[in-house]
């Protein structure tokens, strides 16, 4: 032991105190810096010569709870997903309007049916007719506008993905770069500079975790690798890059497809540093975060919302224009069946055969749909919304004999026999004595194309300027995006008297057609496709347009409300995790001030030792 030892111990104490003071200053200064982790000095006592004791600052400690940090990142992805989706669905709610106000889809629809009620009681009143036309226009405009809004939201999602991809690429590049810098600093005790680099890298990982779900694996030398939860590596020693081919215009028909030729929206590709690439949408690799929310919105939620509007639009058009004619019963020997005229079918119109399989006593339906674009053949069974259904496309271009051959093929294996007794008549008979099947009905559904055909059906709504028949073409089903194009038949706009005059010479006071229109819109039973998200393929939703509208509003409200609840829940989880994280890792000014006092005292004490040693030296020297 010597005075000089005490002196050097005091000096080392002063040095450590100063370093501690510097960290307190840095902590207080960064108290509000996002991502800043509280630093403390790691000090170690050293012994020299077996007796001397000094203090040494071994490094800077980041007060980080990695367990909470990884939890926080998972919840960060979840919260970001929930928030993004909830915000977009909130915007979607605006499309459906404020309940009780005049601009909701339901109230516009009700205004339309109401105007038809007025027309029912005053078919001769030209004001009542105009009111029906303008209410119908209002309805189509509302549908058009809603459809546009939905597609605009999809466009926003597309742009959202695009900018998220840019952010993600930036974050991944930075993480890789910081990985290298940290590696260069070497292992061992971290100094203040390295700690700052770690802070920065954590902050970029946090950013990335908001965009997608990530998993961080810690390696040697403070290195990290970032993976998606699905196991695809995003950052190793080098960063992968995401690429996204955002599409400028998005319409109802622009849908994601694994086939690039059929794809109307952008797809997300990850290009690894070695050049390999993987389609992240196809492999369902992104499961959370803002990008997953945008994808969910663009490809599921909003597509479904559009399908629902299209379902309403096509049901409205078909309900008013489609005439279903039941076949006449015929008997030939032991065979029973029906005859029906199949001329005048438009593309998309249907011939429906209902039969019972006598062996299992099961009811079946075969729907034969006219198709003018043979490239779409054969049709899928879900092309028509009806259960237990077999859908067959029939190409009419080859004349009656070709049509009969196709129908015979369609009925093949059922035991039913199709024939063409004369002209355009289709005859379908059961198998007679064999009794393995019974034909229960044979009907045709044809779309009225003129305003005064003598039938009450009227092509009230059109698809832009062409008539709506539900045709399926290479561009897809006509119903897709119909809500954005539906309009009131221009011929009807030009001559509203056709709302009443269903045949030449119909009396002006004849309410037959208004009665039909009203009853079809309020109580006509329609079937809605399962891709509206209401009903299932096995049991499609069937009901009036009004009740379907109710289901739509209900389902959308429920989705938005559930998304909002999820967001609220995530927010709570995230806040409390953040709080816990902050408690352990962020700067508490009080604590720093207390440290400051301690350091001050320690400094004073060390200084006192120094001054005492000096006095002792003085005493020693003056002897």
């Amino acid at each position: 032991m010597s005075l000089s030892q005490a002196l050097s111990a005091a000096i080392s104490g002063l040095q450590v105190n100063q370093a501690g003071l510097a960290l307190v200053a840095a902590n207080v200064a960064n108290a509000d810096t996002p991502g800043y982790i509280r630093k403390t000095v790691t000090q170690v006592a050293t012994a020299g010569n077996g007796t001397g004791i000094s203090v040494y600052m071994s490094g800077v400690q980041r007060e980080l709870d990695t367990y909470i940090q990884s939890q926080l990142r998972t919840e960060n992805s979840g919260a970001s997903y929930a928030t993004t989706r909830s915000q977009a669905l909130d915007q979607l709610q605006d499309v459906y309007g404020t309940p009780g106000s005049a601009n909701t889809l339901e109230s516009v629809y009700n205004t339309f049916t109401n105007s038809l009620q007025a027309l029912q009681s005053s078919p001769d009143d030209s004001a009542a007719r105009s009111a029906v036309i303008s209410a119908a226009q209002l309805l189509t405009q509302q549908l058009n506008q809603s459809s546009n809004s939905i597609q605009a939201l999809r466009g926003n999602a597309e742009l959202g993905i695009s900018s998220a991809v840019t952010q993600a690429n930036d974050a991944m590049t930075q993480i890789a770069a910081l990985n290298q810098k940290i590696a260069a600093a070497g292992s061992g005790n971290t100094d203040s500079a390295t700690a700052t680099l770690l802070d920065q890298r954590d902050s970029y990982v946090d950013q990335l975790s908001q965009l997608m779900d990530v998993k961080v694996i810690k390696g040697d030398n403070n290195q990290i690798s970032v993976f998606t939860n699905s196991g695809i590596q995003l950052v190793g020693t080098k960063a992968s890059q995401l690429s996204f081919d955002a599409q400028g215009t998005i319409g109802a028909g622009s849908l994601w497809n694994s086939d690039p030729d059929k794809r109307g929206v952008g797809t997300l590709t990850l290009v690894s540093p070695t050049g390999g690439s993987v389609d992240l949408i196809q492999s369902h690799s992104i499961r959370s975060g803002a990008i997953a929310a945008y994808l969910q919105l663009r490809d599921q939620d909003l597509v479904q919302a559009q399908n629902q509007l299209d379902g309403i639009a096509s049901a409205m058009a078909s309900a008013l224009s489609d005439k279903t004619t039941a076949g006449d019963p015929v008997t030939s020997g032991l065979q029973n069946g029906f005859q029906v005229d199949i001329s005048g079918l438009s593309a998309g119109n249907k011939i429906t055969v209902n039969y019972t399989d006598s062996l299992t006593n099961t009811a079946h339906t075969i729907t034969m749909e006219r198709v003018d674009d043979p490239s779409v053949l054969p049709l899928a069974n879900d092309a028509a919304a009806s259960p237990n259904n077999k859908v067959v496309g029939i190409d009419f271009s080859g004349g009656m004999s070709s049509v009969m051959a196709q129908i015979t093929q369609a009925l093949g294996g059922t035991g039913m026999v199709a024939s063409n007794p004369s002209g355009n008549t289709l005859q379908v008979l059961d198998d007679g004595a064999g009794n393995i099947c019974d034909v229960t009905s044979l009907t045709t559904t044809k779309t009225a194309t003129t305003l005064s055909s003598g039938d009450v059906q009227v092509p009230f709504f059109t698809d832009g300027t062409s008539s709506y028949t539900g045709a399926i073409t290479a561009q897809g089903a006509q119903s897709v995006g119909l809500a954005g194009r539906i309009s009131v038949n221009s011929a009807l706009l030009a001559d509203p008297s056709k709302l009443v005059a269903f045949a030449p010479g119909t009396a002006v006071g004849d309410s037959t057609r208004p009665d039909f229109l009203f009853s079809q819109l309020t109580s006509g039973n329609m079937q809605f496709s399962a891709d509206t998200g209401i009903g299932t393929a096995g049991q499609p939703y069937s009901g009036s347009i009004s009740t379907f509208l109710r289901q739509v509003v209900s389902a959308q409200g429920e989705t938005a409300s559930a998304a909002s609840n999820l967001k609220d829940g995530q927010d709570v989880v995230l806040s409390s995790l953040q709080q816990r994280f902050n408690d352990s890792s962020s700067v508490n000014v009080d604590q720093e001030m207390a440290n400051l006092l301690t350091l001050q005292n320690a400094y004073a004490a060390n200084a006192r030792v120094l001054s005492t040693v000096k006095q002792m030296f003085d005493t020693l020297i003056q002897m």
Partner: protein
Amino acid sequence: MSVSAVGGQSAVAIAQLVKMRAQYDDLQRQLSTGQKSSTYAGLGLDRGVTVSLNAQLSQMSGYDSTIQTANTRISLMNTALGQMTDITSQVKAAMVQANTTGSNGSGPSLAQQTAQSSLDQIIGLLNTQSGDRYLFSGKATDTPATDTTDHILNGDGSKAGLKQLISERTQADLGADGLGRLAINATSTTSMNMAEDSASPFGFKLASVTTNLTGVNVAGPTGVPASLDIDTTGSTPNDGETLTLRFNMPDGTSQTMTLTATTSTTPSAGQFTIGATDADTATNLQAAITAGVTSLGKTSLTASSAVAASNDFFDADSGNPPMRVDGPPFDTATGMVAGTTANSVIWYTGETGTDSARATATAQIDPSLTVNYGARANEVGFRTLIQNIATLAAVPISGTDPNGRDLSTALNQKLTVNMAGAPGDQTVTNIATDLAGAQTSMQAATARHQQSTATLGDFLQSIQGVSNEEVGTELLALQTRMQASMQTTAMLFQTSLVNYLPK
């Protein structure tokens, strides 16, 4: 997302504050709009119900306005029907009056004047409009139900009216000699023959001849055209014995003419003097028959002819123009021919159809309830009225003709009977009953709707709306909580060791 940017200890506290502020804003919105939420999402599980309720309420209000419209129309129709009944009574009274006033009275012409003005009124009533809608035209609500009174009576240019048809038919029924298309000839000094001049629908049709004149033999009527014989050879009629001829008339009624034997040398109408010889008796009888037939021709036959012509005229519509006498010449015509819309006025101008007239206007007043309240002016009930009143107005009755009074009486009798209609025929009262039934249904529906609307509206309000008291209370409570929270947050921020460090 949480507020990580603010760092520090307060993430949860600040998130809570933000949330409370949002809640506060929402409560304020609820209070000012009275609506629970501005989106369907915020309405809760019952959001779908609101769509159904709104649809139901909207339909209900649609039904109510339908009822209102229909009610207005039915009320107007009821008023018209009521007035028609009054008018009918007036005409009937005028006819009774005409029959009871003296022979020189102005009764006949007064009755005709009443008929003329009544016809005007009834035509006016049948052309009642509600707004621009004609109520008695069936489905052709844009056209008047009937032509004008002037056209109906007097024709329209080259189109013949009722008077023209009556005139033609009268000529055809009376014949040139006024004997009602009968030939009355002596076949010998003591026998005579009465014969229809042709197998036409016109004039008197011989139905029967009976007598209790002692020794007088009658035979027939037989053959086509029918004829009958009266033989006085060897007869010794006594005073008071009679011979009765019965004729079938153009309007489907029958008319009897009874001649009574008298010893008076100055027989009054309907009597003949028993002659000294058979031949004298025959001569007297023939003269009496001829006089009687002539007189009946000017009265009963003329009236009957007018009724028949009127029946043809009013039993017509645009698809079915009236049957007219095939002429000229009319006095020798032997058949009827269908008129055309070019040569005859079609009195009913509304819609014709085979369906029920009531079904020409319907009001759907409930999802499953439709009431019918249409009417066509050519329904039997209306037609009976207008046809008989028009006939009364159209038949020319001369005030100077001695037969004028009898013609008037005959006509009034027929018209009074016809106006009452055959048992089972529709009357205006039946139509009014139908309409009253519709109105009753509508009243019941309105009451139902009122109740349902109130119930559904309450339900809707309970889903969409808010209770001001509840929101107000919540707002106050929230305000208190917010103030407390802000205060403590502020205190928390102020309480920092920094403030207490030695200066």
